[in-house]
C-alpha cells in the first residue's frame, strides 16, 4: 500500500466511512503503528477545531421572481459594485460639499495686480494697492514734506506770538507784586506777630491735651475688655480642669473596682483549686 493509499484509508476511517471489517483491520494496523495513531489523533484534533466554526443564522432577503429571470430586492450586487468606487465617490462627495459651502458663503479668491484676495462675500477692492512710478513717489514725498514744513512754521509763529504776550503780562504782574509786599511789611508789627504765635501754641497744646485724654479713655476701655475676656477664659479653663479631674477620679474608682473584682475572682479560683485538690 502506497503512502497516498494510506492517507486515503486514514481519512476514510477518520470520517467513519469504512465497513466494519475494514475498520477492524485498520484499528489493528493503528495499534501496531504509533506514528499512524499519532497522525490520526492530530487529524481528529483538527476536526474538533473545525467544528468550532458554527453555522450562522441569516435573514433570507426578499426576492421577486419573474418570468424573464430573477431579481433580488436586495441590491447587494449593485452595492458591492459601488463599494470598489467608494474612495473615489468619497473624494467627489467631499469636493461637492466644499464647493457647495463655498457657493453658499460667496467664497472667492481673486488675483489682481500681483495681489491675492481671499474672502467671503464680495471682495473689497477699495484698499487695492495703487502702483506709482518713481517720479510720482518722489513728488508725493516732496509734497508731504512741504506741507509738513508749512505746518511747523505756522505752529512756530503761533508759539512765538504766545510767548511775547505772556512775557508782557508777566512784566506787568511783577511790578504790582512788589508794591503789595512793601505794603504788608509796613502794616504787621512784631508785637502782633508774637500774639499770633502765642495763640497758635495754645491751640496746639489744647489739641494735644484733647488727643491724649481721648487716647487714655480708649486705652482704659480696651484694657478693661481684655481683663474681662481673660477672666472669662481663666474661669472656663478652671471648670474644664475640674471636669477632667472629676472624670479621672471616676475612672480611677472604676479601675480600682475592676481590679478588686479581678482579685476576688482570682482568689475564688485559687480557693476552688485548693478545695478540689484537698478533696
Amino acid at each position, binding site marked *: 500500500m502506497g503512502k*497516498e493509499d494510506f*492517507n*486515503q484509508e*486514514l*481519512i*476514510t476511517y477518520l*470520517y467513519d*466511512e469504512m465497513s466494519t471489517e475494514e475498520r477492524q483491520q485498520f484499528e489493528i494496523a493503528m495499534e501496531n503503528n504509533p506514528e499512524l495513531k499519532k497522525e490520526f489523533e*492530530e*487529524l481528529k*484534533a*483538527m*476536526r*474538533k*477545531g*473545525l*467544528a*468550532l*466554526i*458554527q*453555522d*450562522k*443564522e*441569516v435573514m*433570507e*432577503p426578499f*426576492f421577486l*421572481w419573474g*418570468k424573464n*429571470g*430573477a*431579481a*433580488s430586492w*436586495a441590491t*447587494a*450586487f449593485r452595492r*458591492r459594485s459601488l463599494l*470598489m*468606487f467608494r*474612495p473615489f465617490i468619497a473624494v467627489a462627495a467631499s469636493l461637492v460639499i466644499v464647493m457647495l459651502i463655498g457657493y453658499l458663503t460667496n467664497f472667492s479668491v481673486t488675483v489682481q495686480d500681483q495681489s491675492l484676495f481671499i474672502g467671503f462675500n464680495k471682495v473689497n477692492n477699495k484698499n487695492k494697492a495703487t502702483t506709482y512710478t518713481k517720479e510720482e513717489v518722489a513728488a508725493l514725498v516732496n509734497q508731504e514734506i512741504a506741507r509738513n514744513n508749512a505746518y511747523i512754521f505756522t505752529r512756530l509763529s503761533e508759539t512765538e506770538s504766545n510767548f511775547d504776550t505772556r512775557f508782557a503780562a508777566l512784566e506787568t504782574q511783577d511790578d504790582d507784586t512788589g508794591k503789595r509786599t512793601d505794603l504788608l511789611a509796613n502794616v504787621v508789627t512784631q508785637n502782633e506777630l508774637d500774639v499770633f504765635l502765642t495763640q497758635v501754641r495754645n491751640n496746639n497744646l489744647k489739641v494735644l491735651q484733647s488727643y491724649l485724654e481721648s487716647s487714655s479713655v480708649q486705652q482704659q476701655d480696651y484694657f478693661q475688655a481684655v481683663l474681662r475676656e481673660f477672666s472669662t477664659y481663666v474661669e472656663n479653663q478652671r471648670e474644664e480642669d475640674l471636669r477632667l479631674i472629676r472624670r479621672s477620679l471616676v475612672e480611677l474608682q472604676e479601675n480600682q473596682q475592676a481590679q478588686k473584682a479581678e482579685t476576688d475572682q482570682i482568689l475564688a479560683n485559687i480557693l476552688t483549686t485548693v478545695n478540689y485538690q484537698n478533696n
Partner: protein
Amino acid sequence: MSETLRDIALYHSECLVEKSQKGDNHAFGKLVGLWFKRIYNVGLRYFGDHDLAMEATQRTFIAVYNNLHGLKDVKRFKYWLYKVALNQCHEEERRQKRKTWFSLFQNDDVRRMEEVHFQPEREFQQKETEEIMGNILKTLPEEQKVVIIMKEYEGMKFREIAETLGISENTAKSRLYYGLKSLRKTIENSGLNLEYI
C-alpha cells in the same frame, strides 16, 4: 425539533423542485427558504465574509432559478445546487481579485487576522478561536477548502462530494487529507495552541 424537520425537508426537496420547474414561483420561494441558510454558510466558510457570502448566495439562487428547467434528475438537485454555489463562489472570488487594485486600503480580514495574532489573551475566547479557524480555513487552496466544507460542514459522503465536484472519491479523500494537514501546519506556524483548540 423544528431544526430536525427542517433537515428532513432539506433532503426531500424534489417535490418543490418539480413544481418550480413547472413555473411555480411560490414553490421556488419555499425551496430558497429551505436552502438559503445552508448555501449562505457554505459561502461564509468559503470567503469568511458576510457580504461576499450573501452575494454569492443570491447569485446562486438567481442562477438556479434561470437554469432549473435544465435539471433532468431532480434527485440530484442537492449536488447540482452545491455545484452552482461553488461555481458562484469561485466566480465571486475572481471578481474580487479583479477589483483588488481599486482597493486603497488593506483587506479587513487580513487586518483582523493580524490583530488576533498580536493579542494572544483574546485567543482564549471561543468567539475569537472560531474567527481564527475561519480565517485559517479561508487561506487554504480552493480545491482543498471546498472538500473540507462539503465534508465537514455539509456532511456529504465522499461519493457525493466526488459526484458534485466531478472528481474521484480518492481524489476527494486526498484533498481532504492534505487540507487538514495544511490547516494544522498553518495553526502551528501562527503560534496558536492546537491542544487548546
